[in-house]
């Protein structure tokens, strides 16, 4: 039995809140990675870095990050990728809503199961944008688009590792002193 099974809620309460700087920096990095010169198939398979970081903070810092920010980020992504304004806003708001309602459940799992949940949310988000574009008369862009949510879910591991571990270390140091 893991510690997580015993204290799913208490563990959350013991965590120190992430600093605003860390949150801001993570979003900036996600935006830059999203804006790298992706082309053709790579572009279709590009993991949605902004969505990933957004879901991470919605799950880990629900008091700071909510649907309002999801909406704003979606608009920025639409401008950044020169798409119809509002489609990513809708996708991110929907994904963030489900992340909010599932967050206690997601946090009670270990990383692989968490990544599975992220996969579901990422599929949902890309379905929203895909369906919207098909509705607007665009052609189906290609099957490589299926790889995008998968890669987004895989990127959950490095992200969680990067953000969790230093913070856990700090928390432990604080507890010891």
């Amino acid at each position, binding site marked *: 039995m893991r510690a997580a099974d015993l204290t799913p809620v208490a563990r959350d309460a013991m965590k120190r809140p992430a600093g605003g700087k860390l949150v801001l920096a993570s979003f900036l990095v996600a935006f830059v990675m999203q804006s790298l010169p992706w082309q053709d198939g790579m572009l279709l398979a590009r993991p949605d870095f902004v969505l990933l970081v957004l879901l991470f903070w919605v799950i880990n810092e629900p008091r700071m990050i909510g649907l309002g920010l999801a909406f704003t980020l979606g*608009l920025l992504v639409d401008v950044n990728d020169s798409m119809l304004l509002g489609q990513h806003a809708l996708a991110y708001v929907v994904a963030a809503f489900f992340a909010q309602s599932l967050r206690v459940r997601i946090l009670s799992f270990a990383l692989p199961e968490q990544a599975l949940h992220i996969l579901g949310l990422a599929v949902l988000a890309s379905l929203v944008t895909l369906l919207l574009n098909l509705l607007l008369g665009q052609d189906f862009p290609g099957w490589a688009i299926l790889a995008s949510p998968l890669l987004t879910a895989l990127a959950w591991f490095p992200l969680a590792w990067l953000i969790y571990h230093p913070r856990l270390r700090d928390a432990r140091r604080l507890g010891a002193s």
Partner: protein
Amino acid sequence: MIGDPPPFFNRGPSPLARLTFFALAAIAVMIADHRFRALDAVRLTLSVIVHPLQQVATMPGAVIQRVGDFFSSQEGLLKENRELKAQLLANSSSAQQAKLLATEQAYLLSMAEARKRFDDTGVMAEVLYAGRNPFSRKLVIDKGLTQGVKSGQPVVDSVGVVGQVTNVAPFTSEVTLLTEKDQSVPVMLVRNGLRAIAVGSGKDGTIDVPFMPVSADIQAGDLFVSSGIDGTYPPGLVVAQVTAVDKNAGFVFAKITAKPAAGVDNHRFVMVLTAPPREAAARPEARGDERRAAKERPGQKVKR
């Protein structure tokens, strides 16, 4: 009331209410952008925020390109130089002819009091990257509002039409390629002056020429140039070359496929034609309206 929580427990509207609010807001934004293009100012503002991040993201590629340019071998440069000189020589004779024709035309036009065919002022721009929208074909170039680029201006390369500026930010702008789905250019067949409309197919970089009757005189290899009747594209720019003509008597229209003349997907520099568009000729129905108006007021003399 006992049921009401004290105000410090109040966490605002319920999550579902928030979802509904923001989802509706997103849909409203989409409608405003798609149907009315009412949010260009919002897009412009947000693009200013995003611009520095985009620059950071394109930096590695730009640095690699610079370094590559710096170390490009002398042999390669010499070869390119030789090729360019040969090209220059080949072009100079036609340029001289063009000069002669231009003087002739200027003389003829001065007699007929017509306008110049088109003003060929333009802005040279470097292609920054292909647009990151997987559903459409766009380029982002490094000239924007501050350099006088405006939405709607045609973009050409050394061979022909590349596309049209569809969105401008202060320092960059977005070019929708000819091959983008439903992107259309009024064209004219060079060989016989047949007018048509070239429409991007959105698939594998081809262009369709729809609604041409089966009897139309079009052959594979024919060249389409812009006809200029829309007032957006100046007349005479090379647009596309016909690759296949499928005349099936079972259909009303021939299926004509063409490929863009310009290297739509592979170039580093393009030219934005910034000259103000020629006014399109008045629509016949508008003239009809005038005539009707004149008829309705027989007492008044219409001043011309």
